[in-house]
């Protein structure tokens, strides 16, 4: 493992320890689980045709839509998922275990079933969707909002569960100290609680965003697949796979590169500071 510098971050005087060999071996094995398929993917990329394959309208539309919907879904997840995590971690109420279980629902359901469940509930003929449609004319399926909803449904559990775990780990006396300094509950949340669970929050955000970006099954089932409106990158990949593997592989590469670029850039700017 010669390439691993045997130092840990930041503090110069901190003791550098040789990490246990078995741990490193296992970790490298873990890495292999991700690296090997990636290499497999790379090995099938039609490098010469790549520029042509990627310059189509289809790709740019799908890329734009994917970015918009996945980021919006992440934002929505933060807005309503962090409060939900807070409630689960901090309030005691009957049925809390059940609610916690419910949060894992989208993980367990095959996304296609999740999408169908969304349809049953919020589709044109859905339990809530029908009255909603009649009252407001709002129709979620086949709309970009529908994509955002499907993404949120599938991806939000990652944020909720990660943040809840971190909140339960936090020493609450820091929050008490902050409130004794005059900080109201919102200020405490914004300036103490969330920053203190920073790394876990970021981990949750990364998971959420990545999951939303890659979301396919619920989206196609609930929101359909129309270029420019509901066709995100994974949908484009799936359709392409039907006919031409090269296109599908090329598109997948785009997704991987985009997400790597975003994550690495974020980390350089933001995560490092934590």
């Amino acid at each position: 493992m010669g390439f691993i510098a045997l130092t840990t971050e930041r503090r110069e005087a901190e003791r550098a320890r040789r990490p246990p060999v078995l741990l490193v071996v296992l970790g490298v094995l873990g890495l292999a689980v991700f690296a090997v398929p990636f290499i497999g993917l790379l090995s099938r990329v039609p490098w010469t045709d790549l520029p042509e394959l990627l310059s189509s309208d289809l790709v740019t539309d799908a890329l734009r839509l994917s970015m918009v919907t996945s980021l919006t879904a992440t934002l929505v997840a933060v807005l309503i998922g962090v409060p939900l995590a807070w409630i689960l971690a901090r309030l005691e109420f009957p049925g809390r275990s059940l609610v916690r279980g419910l949060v894992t629902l989208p993980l367990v359901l095959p996304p296609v079933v999740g999408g169908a469940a969304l349809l049953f509930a919020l589709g044109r003929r859905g339990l809530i969707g029908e009255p909603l449609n009649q009252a407001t004319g709002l129709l979620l399926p086949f709309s970009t909002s529908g994509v955002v909803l499907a993404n949120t449904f599938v991806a939000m559990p990652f944020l909720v569960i990660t943040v809840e775990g971190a909140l339960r780990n936090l020493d609450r006396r820091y929050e008490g100290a902050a409130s004794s300094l005059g900080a109201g509950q919102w200020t405490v949340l914004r300036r103490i609680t969330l920053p203190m669970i920073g790394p876990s929050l970021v981990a949750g955000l990364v998971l959420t965003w990545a999951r939303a970006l890659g979301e396919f099954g619920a989206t196609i089932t609930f929101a359909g697949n129309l270029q420019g409106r509901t066709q995100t990158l994974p949908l484009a990949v799936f359709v392409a796979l039907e006919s031409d593997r090269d296109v599908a592989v090329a598109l997948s590469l785009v997704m991987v590169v985009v997400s790597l670029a975003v994550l690495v850039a974020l980390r350089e700017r933001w995560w490092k500071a934590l």
Partner: protein
Amino acid sequence: MVEGPLGEGLEARFELHRGDEFRLELDLAIPPGRTVALLGPNGAGKSTAVAAIAGLLQIESGRIGLAGVTLDDPGAGINLPPESRKVGVVFQDYLLFPHLTVAENVAFGLRSRGMSRSNSLARAADWLTRLDLAGLEKRKPALLSGGQAQRVALARALVTEPDLLLLDEPLSALDVTTRSEMRRVLDRHLKEFPGPRLVITHDPVEAFLLADEVHIIEKGVVTQWGTPDEIRLRPRTPYAADLAGSNLLFGRATAGLAQVGSHHIHLAEHGIDGDVLLTIRPSAISLHRRPPEGSPRNMWETTIELIEDLGERTRVRTGAPLPLTAEVTAEASTALGLAEGESVWLAIKATEIGVEPGDGRTSSS
């Protein structure tokens, strides 16, 4: 020192539980401009009291009022949140926010109360300089030494100019120089500070220097309170006696003779009969190689259990029949050739023995 009417100070009379075993019953009133030191053994409930007054723990009954405003009154359903109490707290383990720099930590209270970022940082820098922390503004708390961290906690509490100060062992981690410096800073600040102040400390010198009044709390109950001199001269519990550096004996007096265990002690005071507390200052006990002649009415032979060398003075703990602590000058100690395990004669003038009527509560503790 401006002292206002009690209604404008702190009135804390309440009860609460912690876990299954611990119960705190506090009854404390501090007028504005006065400093009360809260002392007591570990686990007595001092930090609990601070947390309750700051609004971080829920009292079960009673009332806490500050400057005429009721902060807590479970009976009346009043329960002001911590951020609405203008209380400055130094926590025993500081609780500095690990993700904020030293300056941001200190500025936090000001910012929370609406001051602009730049103004609050300027004020924070000001206080950091006053507490000799200039240069550390940009550090994260994890990179501070223990004493530096404690001073930051102090700055963070003082900068908000609260109505009430609660200081939980604010100087325990400071080095001697800084401590006496800080004690002076604190003393000056406390004198300028118009509100009531509560200081927790284990250092009697600190308590006696800073406080106008000392409250002693043991096992969740206030066992004695009074001016520093009252505590020092007439401690009523073994803990208070340790604090005062005094010897405290519980006995039964009859006509100027007190029975302590199976031993008898002559008193100058003949007026008090029944349960008594006897206090004997260590320096009032003299030690001799041979039975001393002359006036001391109380003397007996005993063994030296422990010798502690305090520099100019030497502290000697003696054994049966009555364990006492005596203090002699270093010269006397050398001259007498004291050593642990040796036997020695001990003498106490009856006039040097303080006598107080005992009460059930104290002697039962």
